[in-house]
């Protein structure tokens, strides 16, 4: 049972702050590190994996500093995001080389077990250069597991995998978690994270935005205010009607100058709904009651970034 402790860690590159005053504890079980691209997930994983030093703060594993501590790798397995390996060798040779680099007492046995775990024994004698993306991912996984580490760090492991490989890897990660290992993986896809991780840490723009179990995060994300853009044949009348609804906190009219209330000019109504389920239910009957024709109802901010930025500004 191992615990990673990140205490008030910041990391900047020249004048760009990649990780900003993050404190989190990662214990046994599977933890998902969720955040949009550029949120600092990789930087954080690199610091947990000892490949980067924190500019300030400390990253420790069971009390031992990770940065510049080569012996820490007896307890950490890292699956990097980049695909490059020593592809002049076969899968077997590469995993075996990793076992030997760890100076394991029985490198052949360890390599065999690791390849069995990732189900690559059938193709282990082919050159790595000829592997598919999913096979490479599994070989990378085998190199990280070869010394049976209590801590496993994976940087965007699901990237580029097909659905079947994704399910296999998810099951493997769950199994690692059940065995009591501390497993941490990064992803920018909430569905991916909530299917595997019992615990979620959310990073946005270098900051630690939220943490907890996935139900909590899911609730935060669905209960946030939702923005809609609506076009109709009488935006102004619709705006007035909408404001009488309890599920709405704000309405804004925009026009391109060709006349509000006409359908020709691309004018639109921007609605902020506090309870999106209720709003979506009441909008159509409301429009019908006032004799307004709806042309378009579109959620304005469903991108992951806006979900995350809401979590940060909360």
């Amino acid at each position, binding site marked *: 049972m191992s615990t990673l402790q990140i205490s008030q860690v910041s990391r900047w590159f020249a004048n760009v702050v990649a990780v900003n005053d993050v404190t989190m504890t990662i214990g046994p079980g599977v933890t998902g590190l969720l955040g949009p691209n550029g949120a600092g997930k990789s930087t954080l994983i690199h610091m947990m994996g000892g490949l980067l030093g924190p500019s300030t703060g400390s990253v420790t594993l069971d009390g031992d500093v990770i940065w510049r501590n080569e012996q820490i790798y007896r307890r950490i397995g890292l699956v990097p995001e980049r695909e490059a*390996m020593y592809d002049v060798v076969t899968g077997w040779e590469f995993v075996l080389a990793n076992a030997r680099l760890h100076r394991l007492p029985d490198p052949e046995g360890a390599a065999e077990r690791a390849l069995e775990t990732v189900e690559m024994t059938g193709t282990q004698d082919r050159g790595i250069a000829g592997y598919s993306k999913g096979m490479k991912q599994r070989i990378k996984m085998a190199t990280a597991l070869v010394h049976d580490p209590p801590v496993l760090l994976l940087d965007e492991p699901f990237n580029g995998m097909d659905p079947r490989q994704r399910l296999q890897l998810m099951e493997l990660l769950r199994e690692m978690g059940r065995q009591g290992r501390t497993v941490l993986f990064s992803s920018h896809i909430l569905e991916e994270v909530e299917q595997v991780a019992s615990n979620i840490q959310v990073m946005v723009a270098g900051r630690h935005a939220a943490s907890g179990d996935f139900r909590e995060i899911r609730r935060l994300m669905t209960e946030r205010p939702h923005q809609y853009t609506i076009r109709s044949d009488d935006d102004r009348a619709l705006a007035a009607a909408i404001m009488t609804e309890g599920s709405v906190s704000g309405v804004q009219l925009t026009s391109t100058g060709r006349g509000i209330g006409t359908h020709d000019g691309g004018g639109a109504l921007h609605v902020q709904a506090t309870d999106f389920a209720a709003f979506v239910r009441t909008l159509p009957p409301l429009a019908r009651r006032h004799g307004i024709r709806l042309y378009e109802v579109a959620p304005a901010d469903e991108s992951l970034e806006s979900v995350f930025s809401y979590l940060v500004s909360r």
Partner: protein
Amino acid sequence: MNGTVARLTARGLLGRRRALLLLLLPAVLLSLSAMARGLAGADQQLAVTLLGGFALGTLVPLLGLIAGTGAIGPEIDDGSIVYLLTKPLNRHAIVVTKFAVAAAVVTVLGALPTFAAGLVLTGTSANLAVGYAVGTAVAGVAYCALFLLLAVVTRNAVVIGLLYALVWETLIGQFVPGAQALSIQQWSLAVTERIVGAPAEQLGATSAVGLATAVVLLVVVTAGATWYAGRQLRTIRLTSEV
């Protein structure tokens, strides 16, 4: 030293078609020497021109550049060095191993062919074969250490290495006497000069630096560069998305 690191390095360095490219340079040296011997007979002056100008002046710096940067540069560029870095291995042991593999490659493909070319050109007369073989061997070792360090500290190691070997040592070194004091080629030539002995002066195989200075500088550069590369590898930053 680490056997597994050595094997991975050697396979990366000699794998695929790179070994053939590396063989090309000594093949050129040997065929030039055979042609020279066939056309001009055993000519010591010609031997010094070929061994000094081509073997020591071009072949070994280029081999040192290819092997020294190639032993570690590609792994740093594509990120696969992470598999060595995430192991309980001493960083100095990684660098020393890679340096040893590169130095062995340059010795086998640079110094040995130089010795053979010397024998072809002049037999064993005036110690030219042995002199240039030892000279190119120590030069190769020093170039490997220097260029391996370059590959650790900069992504532009090959360009900087080429500028150093071709522009600084060959071009500027020819016209600016002071520049010769800072030249692996000149330091190695001092070793060659000593082994060749008295005929060296007459043949023009003389170095701009004294033997003692040369040996000290060769040792300092080789050991210093290797040590510093190990130190830099400890804190190396791999490019990745932030």
